């Protein structure tokens, strides 16, 4: 009797524990099996994060774009020197009045689903772009899309736009082509089917993403190999595995141990950890620019003299070490070597470091001693926070008081866009704009400092868009840059960049570019 009770008791305990163990096992095992890859056919790349979306029309962050440009292609794209070149088009004809653009599509291009690309897909893609993309205003002057035959696509504009192809080459919110069947898919709900050299094999958010070579890829045989985002692309590695590693130590350690072949965003102070390894190469690309944005709609920086006082107080040499990333002095809003770079033309507005002048200008602006200039910045990007601290000290030397408000980056970005949050100065960096030209700058120039009623700026932008000759566009840009810097809508800090690192004994053909590319990269 006792034995029977005991055994029942034990059995009930075992039942309860058994159910709990089974439930736990089910939770632990709830994951799908991965694809078979080996280290010999897979490039392993470690970056801070993964894409938030694979819908190219809403993709704007580098982490989105570096995956998207392997999956999708546009009619035109940018080459190594950031100029517009045909990609899915074999030829582009622009009418003399810059209102009609005719694209002849390359033959034999296939989507990852096996379907051949036609002009109907191109038209459907542009129509979807106009519906879902935050950048849809770029197509606001489109009067009509025409598809006279399956290989010809025509865009007619209502207004001349001499830089329309430059607009289409943008790698941000890229104008890439999706199969026509996806035309009515809402934002962020498309399937990742493109014409790129790699197709999506697996995506585990917060963990990793796997691309697999697309065997049906039709490369542009006429292009140079790996020419920016265009040219002849070859998927040498069968797989590319993106690992999402937010912690810099983890990324660096993964390269040191051989778990990753290439890593991005190595902090400056960690670069030395790689120094003793002859097989590891660290590269620096100064493709971005950091600025202070001055809010023109918030007192007292609504007065030009006050903004100019802040600019006059700023010294760059003290600020660069605070950025904690590769940085170089430069006054220009474009990258040296680009077609709109204008040498020393507007350098007088840079690195003035003149507290006396700053104090005079502040007085002229009606600044009252003790009045606080409000910085809004974020600890998420130490470069923004620390350079704000340096500027705050420099303002103090000119007798200008300030206070720093730290918020998370989401709030910072949202307030910068909306103008809310009672801020006078905020910091940010731009990566695509300095490379891609004035048409890419326009939105930021107007919206971040909340510029209103600047007719000279408006006129020069109008002139820029209406000028078919590059020389006239350059002249208009020179004026635009002068206005922005002189009015201190934005104050340039420096050209900045990131450090990538890779193991040269493992990969061959990797080179720095605006975004990291893995076509034409071989595994040794």
């Amino acid at each position, binding site marked *: 009797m006792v034995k029977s009770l005991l055994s029942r008791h034990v059995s009930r*305990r075992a039942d*309860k*524990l058994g159910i*709990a163990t089974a439930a*736990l096992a089910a*939770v*632990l*095992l*709830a*994951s*799908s*099996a*991965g694809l078979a890859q080996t280290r010999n056919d897979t490039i392993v790349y470690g970056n801070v994060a993964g894409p*938030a*979306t694979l819908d190219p029309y*809403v*993709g*704007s*962050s580098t982490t989105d774009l570096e995956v998207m440009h392997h999956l999708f292609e546009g009619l035109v794209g940018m080459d190594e020197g950031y100029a517009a070149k045909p990609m899915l088009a074999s030829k582009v004809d622009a009418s003399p009045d810059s209102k009609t653009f005719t694209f002849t599509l390359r033959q034999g291009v296939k989507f990852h689903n096996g379907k051949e690309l036609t002009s109907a897909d191109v038209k459907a893609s542009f129509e979807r772009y106009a519906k879902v993309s*935050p*950048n*849809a*205003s770029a197509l606001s002057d489109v009067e009509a899309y025409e598809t006279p035959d399956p290989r010809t696509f025509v865009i007619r504009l209502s207004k001349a736009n001499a830089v329309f192809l430059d607009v289409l080459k943008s790698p*941000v*919110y890229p104008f890439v082509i999706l199969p026509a069947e996806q035309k009515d898919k809402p934002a*962020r*709900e498309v399937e990742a089917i493109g014409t790129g050299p790699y197709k999506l094999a697996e995506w*585990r*958010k*917060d*963990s*990793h993403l796997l691309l697999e070579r697309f065997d049906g890829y039709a490369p542009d045989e006429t292009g140079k190999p790996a020419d920016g985002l265009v040219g002849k692309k070859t998927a040498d590695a069968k797989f590319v595995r993106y*690992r*999402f*590693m*937010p*912690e810099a*130590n*983890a*990324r660096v*350690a*993964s390269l*040191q*141990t051989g*778990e990753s072949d290439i890593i991005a965003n190595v902090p400056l102070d960690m670069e030395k950890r790689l120094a003793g390894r002859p097989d590891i190469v660290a590269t620096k690309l100064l493709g971005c620019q950091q600025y202070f944005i001055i809010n023109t709609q918030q007192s007292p920086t609504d007065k030009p003299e006050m903004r100019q006082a802040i600019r006059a107080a700023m010294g760059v040499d003290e600020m660069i070490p605070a950025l904690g990333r590769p940085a170089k002095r430069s006054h220009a809003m474009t990258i040296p070597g680009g077609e709109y770079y204008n040498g020393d033309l507007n350098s007088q507005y840079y690195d003035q470091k003149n507290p006396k002048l700053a104090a005079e200008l502040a007085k002229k602006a009606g600044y009252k001693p003790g009045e606080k200039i409000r910085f809004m910045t974020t600890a*998420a990007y130490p470069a923004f926070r620390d350079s704000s601290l340096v500027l705050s000290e420099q303002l103090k030397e000119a007798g200008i008081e300030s206070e720093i408000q730290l*918020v*998370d*980056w*989401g*709030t910072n*970005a*949202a*307030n910068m*866009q*909306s103008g809310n*949050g009672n801020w006078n100065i905020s910091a940010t960096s731009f990566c695509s704009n300095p490379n891609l030209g004035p048409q890419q700058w326009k*939105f*930021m120039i107007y*919206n971040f400092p909340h510029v209103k009623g600047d007719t000279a700026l408006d006129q020069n932008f109008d002139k820029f868009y209406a000028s078919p000759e590059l020389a006239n566009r350059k002249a208009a840009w020179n004026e635009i840059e002068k206005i922005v810097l002189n009015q201190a809508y934005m104050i340039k800090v420096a050209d900045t960049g990131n450090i990538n690192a890779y193991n040269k004994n493992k990969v061959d053909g990797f080179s720095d570019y605006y975004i990291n590319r893995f076509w034409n990269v071989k595994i040794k």
Partner: protein
Amino acid sequence: MARIILTRMAHSVPILLIIAVLAFFLMQLLPGDPAVLMAGDGASEAAIQEIRTRLHLDLPLVQQLGSWLLQLARGDLGSSLQLNQTVVSAVAERLPVSASLAVVSLAITVPAGIVLGVAAAHARGTWLDSLAMAVALIGVSVPSFWIAILSVILFSVTLGWLPSAGYVPLSDGVGPWFQALLQPALVLALFQIGFLARMTRSAMLDVLDQDFIRTARAKGVAETGVVWTHAFRNTFIAVLTVVGYIASLLIGGSVIVEQVFALPGVGRLVVQAVLTRDYPLVQGSLLLFGFIFVLINIFTDILYTLVDPRVRYD
């Protein structure tokens, strides 16, 4: 027992409702607009407004709360604004990672914390007690991200014993799964061991002063028997309570370790959701965490009846 579980579950409904309302208002207190974040840099005001309208973020707060509660009443936790998936599937996708980390970490924490706590209590006032409590204090005090970085440099980079980061699912094999989790679990366990050891020591000290312990010793029971059979068994309820609490913390509270070791767990999911103002995901995840806490508490209560037959709920 089933009746007890059902009653407990029913009692949890008001708690979950309070969590739901609090989570809703806490998110609203944060500055920032998810529509702006979703639209990205350079988006026009019209594009931002379109997103706001589509996601019903333009409705009055009370109306938003009301429709969310109605949605909850239908058993729907909603969908993430950023991830293009439901809250339940987003959490379910990451739960195996956090649960795996919690299991391995608990498997290290429980024996180590108990042995350390019992040893410290038994050798009260000696160097062993001081050493055990110093180890516990270090575990509780040293920031886990610092320990994690040092651990990676030692075990991954210098010795090459363990992978530096990443998660391998259990379905890919127990060996790789365990190897990927061992280092983060050890780092996480270090803090919990300290906590458990201190609590165990304190519970043991209470029991070791009791008359029945003296009686056991007087009867000639071996010291091991006194400590483990007579003393420790009487602290087990207290220890189990602490273990249940630690298990609850481990499910959603290992954000830093998940971040450093690039583990795609629920902690990281929620932090990311907060940063991107993904309201439904934060609210839904907090509610799910609340539910998991309730389940762990019920499970702990059931375990009480197993370890101590005197505990009866009926």
